[in-house]
C-alpha cells in the first residue's frame, strides 16, 4: 500500500503558518514557552485543520468552514481602551477582568478579591513558575486536539486565576471579552483557573459587544479536593460570519462539585469542546448548555468525559433549538477506565427542530472498561409537540405565543435547574431575548 498522503495545504493553513512565523518573536514567554509554541504548532501543522475524516471533527469540517485565517489582532490602542472603559461602566456585579482582543487589560479590571491571585498569562509565562507552566501547557489530557495545539502555539495572553485553598469567594469572578478591531482579526487567549482544596468560587465568562472574527480560546481548569466551582460561559456576541472555538480542559480532584453551563447564540460557526477528567473519587461534575441557532449558523458541542476516579457522578445535558438552516452537532463521549468503579454517568441531548432546512447530528458515545458502573445516554430530536401547541391554543393563546412559551420552557429549564437565581435570571433574559427576536431581521455584526 502507498504511504499515507499529506493533503495539500489549504489557504487557511498556509496563512496560519505565515502568521505564526511572523508573530512568534513578539509572543510572550521565555525559551520554554517558545519551545512549547513551536512543538505545538508543528503538531497542528502536521495534522492540518481537522476535517470530516477526523472522527472528533466529523460534523464540523474546519477545512471547509475555515476558508481563510484572519490576521492576528494587534494590541488595543489607548483611545479604544478609554472608549471601552466608558461602555463597561454599567456592567453586572462581580470582580471584573477584561480581556481585549486576547490580551488581559489590567487597568480596566477590578482588583482580585480576597484569597484570589490574578495574573496575566504573559506574566506567568515570563516568570516561568514550572507548576503553572505545566498546567498551562496541558500536554496530556485534551492537549492532543489539534485546535488546542494551535491555541498553545499562538496564545497571546489570558488570565490566570488562583483561588487559595479554603477561600470562599462570594461574588462571581467575571471575565469579559471585548474587541476593538474594526477589520476581521483573530484572537487566541488561553486562561487558567486553579481552585485550591476546599475553596468555592464562581467564574462567569461573557462577551461584551462584537468579538474578533476568529477566536480560539482555551480555558484550563483544575479543581482541588472538596472544592466547589461553578462556571458559566455565554457566547452571544459574535457576528454571523465569525468562527469561534472554545476549548475547556477540566481536571477534578476528589469530592469536588463542579458545574459548567454554556449558552451559544448568534454566532457563525461555533465549536465548544470540553475535556473533563475525574481524577479523584466521589466527585460530581455537571456539564450543560443551550444552543439557540438560526440562519445558517453551525454550533458544535463536543465532550470527552473521562472517569478515572471511583464513585464519581457525571451529568451532561445539552439542548438545541434549531431554526431556518442551522446545523447543530452534539458529540459526547463518556469513557470509564478500569479502576473507575461505581461510576454513575448520564448524558442527554435534546434538539428541537423548527424548520425543514435544519440539520441535527448527534453522536453520544460510551466507552466502558469497568464493570460496576451505571452509565447511560439519551438523544432525542424532533419538532414541537402538536398536542401541546393545540392545548395552549385551546386556552386562547395565539399560535406564535404558544410556540414561544413552549420554546422558552424547553430552553430555559436547564438554567433554572442548574444555576443560582441572579445568573439564572441573566441567562434566561438572553434566551427570551433570542426567542422574541426569532424570525426578525438578522442580528447586528452581520458584515462579512
Amino acid at each position: 500500500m502507498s504511504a499515507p498522503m499529506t493533503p495539500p495545504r489549504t489557504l487557511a493553513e498556509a496563512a496560519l503558518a505565515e502568521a505564526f512565523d511572523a508573530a512568534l518573536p513578539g509572543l510572550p514567554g521565555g525559551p520554554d514557552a517558545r519551545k512549547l509554541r513551536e512543538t505545538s504548532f508543528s503538531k497542528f501543522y502536521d495534522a492540518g485543520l481537522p476535517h470530516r475524516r477526523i472522527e472528533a471533527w466529523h460534523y464540523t469540517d474546519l477545512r471547509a468552514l475555515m476558508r481563510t485565517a484572519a490576521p492576528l489582532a494587534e494590541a488595543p490602542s489607548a483611545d479604544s481602551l478609554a472608549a471601552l472603559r466608558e461602555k463597561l461602566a454599567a456592567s453586572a456585579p462581580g470582580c471584573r477582568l477584561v480581556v481585549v482582543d486576547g490580551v488581559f487589560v489590567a487597568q480596566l479590571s477590578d482588583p482580585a478579591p480576597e484569597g484570589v491571585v490574578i495574573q496575566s498569562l504573559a506574566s506567568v509565562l515570563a516568570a516561568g513558575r514550572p507548576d503553572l507552566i505545566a498546567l498551562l501547557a496541558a500536554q496530556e489530557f485534551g492537549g492532543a486536539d489539534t485546535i488546542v495545539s494551535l491555541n498553545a502555539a499562538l496564545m497571546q495572553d489570558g488570565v490566570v486565576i488562583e483561588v487559595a485553598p479554603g477561600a470562599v469567594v462570594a461574588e462571581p469572578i467575571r471575565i469579559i471579552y471585548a474587541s476593538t478591531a474594526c477589520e476581521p482579526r483573530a484572537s487566541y487567549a488561553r486562561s487558567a483557573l486553579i481552585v485550591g482544596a476546599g475553596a468555592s468560587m464562581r467564574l462567569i465568562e461573557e462577551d461584551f459587544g462584537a468579538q474578533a472574527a476568529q477566536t480560539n480560546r482555551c480555558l484550563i481548569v483544575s479543581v482541588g479536593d472538596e472544592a466547589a466551582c461553578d462556571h458559566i460561559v455565554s457566547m452571544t456576541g459574535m457576528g454571523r460570519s465569525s468562527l469561534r472555538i472554545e476549548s475547556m480542559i477540566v481536571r477534578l480532584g476528589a469530592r469536588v462539585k463542579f458545574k459548567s453551563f454554556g449558552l451559544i447564540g448568534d454566532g457563525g460557526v461555533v465549536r465548544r469542546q470540553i475535556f473533563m477528567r475525574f481524577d479523584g473519587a466521589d466527585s460530581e461534575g455537571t456539564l450543560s448548555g443551550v444552543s439557540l441557532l438560526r440562519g445558517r449558523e453551525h454550533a458544535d458541542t463536543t465532550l470527552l468525559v473521562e472517569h478515572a476516579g471511583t464513585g464519581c457522578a457525571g451529568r451532561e445535558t445539552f439542548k438545541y433549538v434549531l431554526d431556518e438552516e442551522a446545523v447543530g452537532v452534539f458529540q459526547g463521549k463518556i469513557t470509564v477506565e478500569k479502576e473507575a468503579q461505581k461510576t454513575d454517568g448520564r448524558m442527554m441531548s435534546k434538539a428541537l427542530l423548527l424548520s425543514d432546512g435544519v440539520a441535527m447530528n448527534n453522536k453520544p458515545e460510551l466507552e466502558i472498561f469497568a464493570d460496576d458502573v451505571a452509565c447511560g445516554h439519551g438523544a432525542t430530536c424532533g419538532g414541537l409537540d402538536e398536542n401541546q401547541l393545540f392545548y395552549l391554543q385551546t386556552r386562547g393563546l395565539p399560535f406564535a405565543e404558544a410556540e414561544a412559551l413552549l420554546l422558552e420552557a424547553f430552553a430555559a429549564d436547564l438554567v433554572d435547574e442548574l444555576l443560582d437565581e441572579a445568573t439564572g435570571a441573566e441567562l434566561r433574559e438572553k434566551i427570551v431575548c433570542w426567542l422574541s427576536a426569532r424570525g426578525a431581521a438578522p442580528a447586528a455584526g452581520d458584515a462579512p
Partner: protein
Amino acid sequence: MAAVQETVDRVKSIDVSEYKYGFFSDIESEKAPKGLNEDIVRFISAKKNEPDWLTQWRLGAFRRWLTMAEPTWARVDFPKIDYQDLYYYSAPKTAAGPKSLDEVDPELLKVYAKLGIPLGEQEILAGVAPERRVAVDAVFDSVSVVTTFKDELAKAGVIFCPISEAVHTHPELVQKYLGSVVPTTDNYFATLNSAVFSDGSFVYIPPGVRCPMELSTYFRINEQNTGQFERTLIIADKGSYVSYLEGCTAPKRDENQLHAAVVELVTHEDAEIKYSTVQNWYPGDSEGKGGIFNFVTKRGDCRGARSKISWTQVETGSAITWKYPSCILRGDESRGEFYSIAISNGRQQVDSGTKMIHLGKNTTSRIISKGISAGKSQNTYRGQVSSHRKATGARNFTNCDSLLIGNSCGAHTVPYIESRNTSTQFEHEATTSKISDDQLFYCMQRGLSAEEATALIVNGFVRDVLQQLPMEFAVEAQKLIAISLEGSVG
C-alpha cells in the same frame, strides 16, 4: 418455578467443551491455488461455469479492491491479514452437483447430522422427525452441497437454490439484483467478496406468495487456511413474505480464518423479509488464539411502499465481528427492524450495529441491541440513524443496553444520529451496567448458584430479542448464550 428449573436444566446440559462444533471432518477437497490474482478470480468463475458478464463483474470488483485500503475505524484489533496466504476456493470433491440427498457424500451428511442440521427430507416428510419443516441450503466451504425441499418450494413458485445455480437458471433475476444493494465499490470486504464469492443462497419469492416454510442456510468452514466468501441474495416481490434463517460454525483451529460475506435483501411493495442469524463461528480459545475473522456486509433495501425488513441476530462466535446489517428505507411507510444480541467472551472483539437510512415518507425503524461482554472481550455497538430532508414523518426508536460481566472487559456504544427535518422523531437511549447485586442476591437466596442466577438474569436481559427469533432458533440461541458465558462468573 418452571423458569428456574429450565435454567438449571440448561446449565446442567451444557457441554464441558466450550465450543462443541469445533470438530474437523476429513473430507477430500479440491482447492484453487493459494493466493489472489486475476487468474484466481477467473478460475473461480470458470469453476462455476459463469457467463461472461459475471466474470467481468468479478474482475471489475477485483481491480477496484486493489486500490482500496482495509478499514481501520472499527474498534477491533487484529494481526494484519495476508490476503495472498489464503485459499479462495475449496470444494468437497464429491460435490459435482448431487441431484438428490442420496447422491450426497455420506461423510458430509454425517457432518450436518453432528451439527444438528436437518437435511433428511424424507424423515421429515415421513413424519419421523418433528413436523416443523425448514428448507435448508447447506454451504460447505465454497460450495452449496445440498438444498432440501426444492420441489415443494417450486410448487409455490418460490426459487430457493445456490446462487451459482441461479446464475444459470434465472440469469435475468441475478443480473438485475446482484450488487444493486451492496455495490461492488461498497467497502473493502464487500468488494473482495464481489471478486471471489463462491456460493451462497438465492431466494426469489413471487408476488403475493407467503413462503410455505422457513428457509435456512447453514454455513460451515471446514478446510484449513480457507476464506469463505458467500453471497446471499433474497428478493421478495410485491406482497410476499419470507422468513430466512442463517447459521454458521467452523472447526477449532489455531490459525485465524477469514469470512467475508455479503447479504443483499430487496423488498418490493408490501413485501416482508425476516432475516435471522445465529452466528457461532469458532471464537478462538480463551487466550485469543485462532478463531474466525467475520467481516460481513449485510444490507436490505426496502424499495416498495409499506415493505418491511427485519434483521435478528445472535452473535456469539468469531474472534472478530465486523458486521452492520442495515436497512435503506426507500419506499414510503417502509419499516426496518434490527434486533441483536451480541455476546463476547474470552478475547473476542465485536464491533456490530446497524444503519437505518430513512429516505421515504413516514418510514419507521426500531433498533434493540443487547450487548453482553465477559472475560477479556470488547463489545461495541456502532449504529447510524439518519433521515433525508424529504423523509417527513420518519420515526426511530433505538435502545442499546450493555451488560458487563467481570472487570476485564469493555462495552462501548457509538451511535450516529442525523436528522434533517422537523417532522422526524428520533429517540435513542443506551445504558451500560453490570448485573445488579440485588438481583443476583435475590436469585441466590432462592437457591440458585451464582452461575445459574447469572444465566437467568442474562436470559431476562436479552428476552426482547429472543422473542423475535423463530422458535427453534430461539431455543438454540438460549443454549448458546449459556455456553458463551460459561466460566465468566466467579
